[in-house]
């Protein structure tokens, strides 16, 4: 398994930055001035680059065979592109509503992609599925709400907490999910 998903630790290495940056920005009560937003936007660009590299590696190396490699590629690719959109939105101070719409859009795609692991009978450990469920629907839905004008205290607090959980899920994927350390949950099939 470690050989098959070898690019996952690299992808996750970039993803931990924006998730932790947003968690910290919310709980440290940043005012989110343009300069602070630009700093966070750079972490989103880092996530885009590392996730795109992961997605590309899975297509080029084709470690599992066409269908499964595409699945391992499409999930990071969707997140890579949403982080690219987030980078441009926060760097240039653009209207965040399209970002929220896209987060809602990939929620469904990501949930179907997660279900495909079961349909294809890939023996991933349950912890990976739990990590993917934390990303979508819960984190992506939070991104929709917070970028669509629902910025009430409860919504912002929810996004802060879910960013922290998603950061923990990313660390889990980086080491345990990727096979660097042995999985601690049974396989799904």
């Amino acid at each position, binding site marked *: 398994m470690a050989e098959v998903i070898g690019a996952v630790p690299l992808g996750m290495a970039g993803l931990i930055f924006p998730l932790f940056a947003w968690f910290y920005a919310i709980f440290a009560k940043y005012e989110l001035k343009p300069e602070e937003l630009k700093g966070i936007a750079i972490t989103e660009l880092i996530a885009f680059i590392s996730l795109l590299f992961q997605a590309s590696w899975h297509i080029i190396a084709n470690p599992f065979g066409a269908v499964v490699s595409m699945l391992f590629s499409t999930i990071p690719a969707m997140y890579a592109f949403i982080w690219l959109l987030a980078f441009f939105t926060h760097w240039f101070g653009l*209207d965040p509503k399209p970002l929220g719409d896209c987060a809602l859009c990939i929620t469904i795609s990501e949930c179907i992609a997660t279900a495909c692991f*079961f349909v294809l009978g890939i023996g991933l450990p349950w912890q990976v599925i739990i990590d993917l469920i934390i990303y979508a629907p819960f984190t992506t839905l939070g991104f929709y709400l917070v970028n669509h004008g629902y910025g009430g205290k409860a919504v912002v607090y929810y996004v802060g907490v879910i960013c922290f959980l998603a950061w923990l899920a990313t660390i889990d994927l980086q080491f345990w999910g990727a096979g660097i350390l042995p999985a601690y949950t049974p396989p799904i099939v």
Partner: protein
Amino acid sequence: MEELYRFLVPEEVVEGAFENLWVQGRYGFTGCVTNHRVLFVGTTRKMGFEKERIIEIPLDAISNFEVKIKERDAKLFIAGVLLIGVGILFSLLVPQFAPAGIVYAGAGIGCIVLSRKLKKKYLVIEAKGLALRIEGIGDIAEEMASTLRRAIEKVRSGVERES
């Protein structure tokens, strides 16, 4: 933001200032309510070119203003229905998926509940026969309405005292 507007309009009393506003659906505005007017300053982009926009409404020109509420978020509702669909469909296709399917269906129900519970608030200011729609993040529209009410009451009580 209030300090910034105090520099911008030093001869007026700034009652309140607000950021990240959508004015008539255009994002990127800041706004303030002074003892004389409501002022919106923002940058809009068309074909990549930036243009500064200033919208100014004198307080005595405002005929009416109210906070309107959008009752349902259709996008969130559709996402909820789709999540329930994905959860049920794949649970039926692959029984091992059922625990995850239940979580998806639960999140879908949460989306449907939220789509009715979370209400988007807009402030509509009517002046000179026109209506300007302002949307903010969270409860900004309500805060702006109460600031505007306070400013108009102050102006009216001042006029009455003078007369």
